[in-house]
Structure formats: structure tokens, C-alpha cells
């Protein structure tokens, strides 16, 4: 029995339809997003079941999870606040902004709040350099951008997400 396939059958079929029939493997990335939707990480079981759908070994699926930064193989905070601290944003105060958020939450960059809800991390350029300071929020529902932020506006949003 494949619980992943049972649960998301319609979505899985419409994803598979985008690629040639003999190239199912192309669907591995969208399927991983699907598996991550509810709990924000991909379990060993998910990897095995995705492998089954695509005719791949679960270790191969695991290597994809390991390679790409937006997939996770363990549970951290359910919501990730990903502040861009790359060069162009840093020139516009992103490091101080990230430190400000962390201070308010009582954690260091890269850490998760004690209640396990929010992880704050520094990430590379997100193609929004003219709207620094900015961050994206990643949770099971996907990703959203928040631009031209202050520590105040960011904290307001984070409180809502908690």
C-alpha cells in the first residue's frame, strides 16, 4: 500500500502529466514539495513511496532531498523565516535586521524558538535585492516573500505565524 499515492492521487496524476510518460523521474521535485506540505520535512517513508511512484530507489530520492536546500529531512520549526543576508541585501542593512529579529526571539541565527514553531536562518540572494531588508517565509503551504521590512513589521508577522 502506498499512503502517499492514496492521499494525493489526483495531484500526483496532474503533476505526472507534465512530463513524457517514459520520464516520470522529472516529477520527483514537485512530489517532494507535496510530501513536505503538512509537516515541513520529508520522512524516510515518503522517500520510499515517492520512489515507488516514480520507479526510483529511495536512496536516490534521499540524495535529491539532500542536494536541494528547500527540502528538509528532519523536523525543525514548522515555519522558517529565511532572511536574505547575501551581499546586495547586506549592503542595505540585512545583517543588522536579521540580528534584530533573532534578539527579539531570543535565539541565534540558524536556531529554532524553544516552542519549536519558528526557525530563523540566513539565506542567499532571493532576487529581491532592491527591496532589502527582506525575508521569505517557508512552511508546508509553500513560500512567500516579505520585502522592505523593519524589525517591527517582521515581528508583527512572526507573531501572527506562531
Amino acid at each position, binding site marked *: 500500500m502506498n499512503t502517499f499515492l492514496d492521499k494525493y492521487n489526483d495531484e500526483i496524476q496532474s503533476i505526472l502529466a*507534465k*512530463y*513524457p510518460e517514459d*520520464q*516520470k*523521474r*522529472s*516529477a*520527483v*521535485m*514537485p512530489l*517532494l*514539495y507535496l510530501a513536505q506540505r503538512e509537516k515541513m520535512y520529508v520522512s524516510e517513508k515518503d522517500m520510499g513511496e515517492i520512489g515507488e511512484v*516514480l520507479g*526510483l530507489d529511495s536512496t536516490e530520492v534521499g*540524495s*535529491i532531498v539532500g*542536494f*536541494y*536546500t*528547500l*527540502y528538509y529531512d528532519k523536523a525543525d520549526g514548522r515555519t522558517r523565516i529565511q532572511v536574505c543576508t*547575501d*551581499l*546586495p541585501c*547586506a*549592503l*542595505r*542593512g540585512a*545583517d*543588522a535586521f536579521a540580528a534584530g529579529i533573532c534578539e527579539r526571539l531570543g535565539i541565534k541565527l540558524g536556531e529554532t524558538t524553544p516552542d519549536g514553531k519558528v526557525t530563523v536562518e540566513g539565506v*542567499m*540572494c*532571493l*532576487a*529581491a*535585492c*532592491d527591496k*532589502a531588508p527582506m525575508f*521569505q517565509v517557508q512552511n508546508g503551504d*509553500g*513560500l*512567500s*516573500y516579505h520585502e522592505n521590512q523593519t524589525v517591527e513589521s517582521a515581528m508583527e508577522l512572526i507573531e501572527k505565524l506562531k
Partner: protein
Amino acid sequence: MEHILLRHRDIPNINQLDVYMQHGGFEAFKKVVTTMKPEEVVEEVFKSGLRGRGGAGFPTGLKWRFIDKNNSPRYVVANADESEPGTFKDREIMEGNPFQFFEGVMICAYAVGANAAYNYMRGEFWELAYVLDARIADMEKAGLLGENLFGTDFSLRIYNHLGAGAYICGEETALLESLEGKLGQPRLRPPFPPSFGLYGKPTIVNNVETLANVPKIIENGWEWYKSIGTDKSPGPKIFSLSGNVEKPGNYELPLGSTFRELIYEHGGGITGGRAIKAIMPAGASSAIIVANDKALDTPMDYEQVQNVGSLLGSASIIVMDETVSMDWLVQKTLHFFEHESCGKCTPCREGTYWMTHLVDDFVDGGAGVEKVELLYDVARQIEGKCLCALGEFSIQAVLTGIERFPDDWKEKTLKSEAPVTA
């Protein structure tokens, strides 16, 4: 001047299909499918002189000529990975003027005989991908995508595909591997994608901005296009301006506009009226330019930026003011490349690791100048030994930061200060 690419700045709601069509949208696509031979389309684009906007500046029409017509199916893949630090133009095109980009994809597909096209977007463009899925559905409903278009035997589908956070997937062969569901690691080349691309089939990979130029070339003719910009670098270009400037943002200017025009006329000059110190014209991958008068008066096109010791690349112009120290800057770029090295070849994987440690020791750890000498040597050893250009990119800021700004690497007793950013 009216925008040719960022037309949403002149025409409200052009990201809606009916508005785009009211302003001549898809006339060019209809014209090529119903009245032109594929080869004629390729020749029109070739004669326009359009060069790839993804970084390398390769002539687009020439790439299309290389498509292997003896093998099928053939594919078009739009490169919407946009991950070079300082680059944010493709995102604006896809948000503001998406149909012009898609029309470019469609004309390209007709020109090379492809019946399927993929738009590979970086995973962070998640929300945008959903919007673009809806735009594609609009085009299907309007009969612009699907079977037997305009009553001919040409059929075409477009699919969006999201990556998941890996800069290397902007490199075209790594992108194709990723789209095939594998690790995003570059292939050995040759063969090149026009003969061996997606699923081993002939494939054209073009940048989003490159493709957005194509409908306008068909609409107005190659002579019109060639009259914009410079002789060898024709056309408009979107310059992504970031860093210590008053008005960061995208600016569409003819190729050959000077750094001074971009930074001072359009960008409002340096934040707080401070002095300019350095420019990176191609994002974090750039050789750093000393921003003296000669540099500021240099026309920005694929040839002339080389005269001041750098490359135009994707035209992601990062500006640094006098408070920015190059050791701090190089630490930022090295952390980026160390994180993004795909690990396939040793000089890049090990080299970016060691360079990052050395620069950290110097900037944060109070280590002496001998670390800087070592850093420089390691960078020199990486040169020319990497499988793809990422390895080469990683040493540009290191070498030029040290060579061109020696004062920023003096022995320090205190930790380097981050630049003033207010």
C-alpha cells in the same frame, strides 16, 4: 522612452491576457506560425544581433541555428532560475509582463520545431509559479496553446517547473539534469543542448529576458532592433541596480549606456551622498571594478566592460560606497560560492571551502596577512581547473579584491566592521 521589455510600467494590467492582446499581443506569434517558415524566424532573430541575457551574451539566432533538426522531439527550456546575487529582472518580467516572455518561448518553439516547453523557475518563485500556471491556462483557453494552432499542424504546450534552491541549476546543463529529476550538477560539454539537451534531445535553453525580446523583433523587424544599443551589443537591457544607491531597482536602458548614467541619473547616486568606491557589474561573480571616472564613463555592453577588467554578465550592477571594505565583501561572496558549489569537481568543492576558512580567519579571527597571501594562492590554483564556470566565478572577487584594493587587506587588530548601511 517607452519600455520594450518592462512594458507593464507604461501599460497597466498588461499581465492580463486581454490587455496584452489589446496592445498587439500574440500578433507576432500568429504571424510566424501562419506566414513564416521556421528557418525564416531563426534568420530574423540572427540578423537582429540579439545576444543571450543570461550572462554569456551568446548570439541567440546562432544558438537556434544549431538545433539538430534530424532528431526529435525537440524542447525549449526557459531559464528562470535567476539566482545570481544582485539579479532580479526575470522576476519582474514574469510578474509584470509575463505574456511577452511566453510569446517569446512560443516563437522560439515554432522556430526550432518544439512541441513542448518548460519554464524552469527557482523554487523561491513559488507564488509566482501559481500565477503563471493560471496565465498558461488562460492562453490554452484562448487557443494560443494546444493542438493545431491557428488551424496549422503546429501544436505546443508550456509547463512551469519549480527548482528547490540551488544556484548551480542556473547553469544550463545542471538545469537540464535537475529538470530530469536528478542532482543539479553540470554535464561535460560538448555535446551542447541544441544537439543533446533535455532527455538527450535537441533543446534550446534561453534566459527569460532573452526570450522577452523576441516578439518585439518579429513585430518591428531586425533593422529596428539593431538600431538600439551598440553595434556588437544591440537592443535594450534590463540593469538590476543594487547596493549603496538611493534608488535601487530595475532600469531598462539601451546597451551601451554608461555606469554613470545608470548609477547617478537613474539610481539617484550613492546613499547619503557618500563617495562611490567599487562596482560589481555581473553580481557576485564579477571581477570588482575600481569606480574611478574612467570606469564610470564606460559604456555597459558585452565588449566595453572588459576594457575596465570585468564582464557585463547578467548586468546585475552592485554598487559599493567608500565605507565598504573588500575583505568583508569577499567574505560574503565566498560564503555564497562555498554554499553553492555542487561538489562535482575537487578544485571548486575544496577550493571554495578553503578560501572561505581563510577569509573567515582574516576577517573574524584576527589572523595575519599571511592568510591573505594564502587565500590569493588558493584562488590562483583553482583558476582554469573547474568543470563549469561557477568555480571560475568564485575567484573573481578574491583576486580583484586583493589586487585592486590592497589597502583593505592590511593587518588588523580588530574585527572588520560591517559597512555603514543607514
